[in-house]
């Protein structure tokens, strides 16, 4: 039941308007990080406040909300964010990806392809892809302005020289619309291709770093790679989910009490849907 002591969707209307203006500019300039005045929330910065602020600014009574954390609908972060948004909006929530109109996610893109009527909102800890090579914000801003991405390419090259492969496991940088280098948030490399020419709108919110950026539908998003060393995502060849048997999903590696290794779908909702389908 909605708590009437707060404004609908918790934030005051001025805050929502600022975030909405930033989101529109972010959509108009794909991959560019728009600064915004990140608000205080009843949750610590770094726990998804950027995503929550975007969700609260977007959401309306007719929306159906899904929140996932590392693919799971039932983790602490996802459950509490869903409860919080439910308390201040009364919107319907779901675990089924296809039913949701707004999906907030931490570190995964659902396995079910999203449609044009859906919006996926990412919680982003470090939005700046150049931070790993340059600590100063004013310098990274200038590097983006000048499209100077040489240090990142050098980092990839050094990784190849040292280890014979690119060692970035998540937050793999990509180029958006051929102009901006973007951090896709800590999604696994497995999910990077889902960003390319997707039907849905992707919005990224970094509350602590006070940045919003976006990828509109059907936008070119290319993961960085050299001509002779193509981009490679995680390979689960020969492995399958122990619950649903899927072989084409991103799998979590786990160990039971005996130390035996097994694999399970990271996207719990997809895994459940497959099991429901199989069991009729």
């Amino acid at each position: 039941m909605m708590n009437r002591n707060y404004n609908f969707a918790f934030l005051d209307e001025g805050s929502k308007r600022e975030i909405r203006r930033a989101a529109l500019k972010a959509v108009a300039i794909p991959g560019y990080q728009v600064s915004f005045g990140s608000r205080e929330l009843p949750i610590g910065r770094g726990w998804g406040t950027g995503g929550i602020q975007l969700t609260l600014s977007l959401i309306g009574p007719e929306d159906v909300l899904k929140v996932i954390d590392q693919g799971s609908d039932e983790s602490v972060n996802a459950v509490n964010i869903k409860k919080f948004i439910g308390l201040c909006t009364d919107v319907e929530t779901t675990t089924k990806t296809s039913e949701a109109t707004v999906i907030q996610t931490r570190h995964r893109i659902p396995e079910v392809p999203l449609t044009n009527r859906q919006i996926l909102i990412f919680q982003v800890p470090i939005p700046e892809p150049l931070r790993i090579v340059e600590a100063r914000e004013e310098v990274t801003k200038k590097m983006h302005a000048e499209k100077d991405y040489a240090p990142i390419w050098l980092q990839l090259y050094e990784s190849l020289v040292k280890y014979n492969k690119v060692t970035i496991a998540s937050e793999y940088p990509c180029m958006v619309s051929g102009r901006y280098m973007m951090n896709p948030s800590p999604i696994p490399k497995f999910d990077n291709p889902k960003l390319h020419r997707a039907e849905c709108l992707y919005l990224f919110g970094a509350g602590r770093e006070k940045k919003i950026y976006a990828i509109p539908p059907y936008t070119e998003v290319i993961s960085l790679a050299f001509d002779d060393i193509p981009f490679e995502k995680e390979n689960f060849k020969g492995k399958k989910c122990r619950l649903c048997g899927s072989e084409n999903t991103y799998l979590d590696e786990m160990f039971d009490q005996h130390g035996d290794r097994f694999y399970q779908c990271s996207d719990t909702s997809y895994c459940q849907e497959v099991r429901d389908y199989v069991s009729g």
Partner: protein
Amino acid sequence: MTSQLSKKHSFDTVFDSQKVFRLILEAMSNPARVVGTKEFADKLFGEYPAFLAVAMTLLDNESCFNVCGNQLLSDEIASLTLAKRTPMESADFVFVCTANDMEPVIQKAKCGTLSDPHKSATVVIQNDGQPVCQMALAGPGINGCTVVRMTQVVKDALAFRDMQNYEYPQGIDLLFISDDGGLFSIPRLIQMEVQ
């Protein structure tokens, strides 16, 4: 204060704003797709109620606007949103009521900088008239290429915009609103070719 300003409106600043925002977001994400704002514009008053619906959704005392000399519209927007009136060159939002104003507006509207391209204007244009041509539009938000029928206003606006030769990411974003409340957008990355 004019008599128009004393009129009461029934536009809900929480729920109607949210719905109009989602329509604008849909339009910005899917350029050339027309979304309907009539339901919300009808809750406002004056000669340009759809402009007021957009203004009430996006403007407040932290933003500034220009209306190309339309004093009544300027008073209405300032009164409803508390946004600041400002010269064309520094306005975050420019509302263009007549086609004749379009060329000077697009020439003067701020286009941001290479470092801060978001500090650029959103130009909201009254889109009157019948379609006169077909245009193929392409860019982010459009699946390949889409052919749409456009009015002279839209054709001219894009021609004026392209004459500015902005260096991307600098540029301006265009919103067109027709009499029937139909709204669509052409963000800076969308390119056209007349067929």
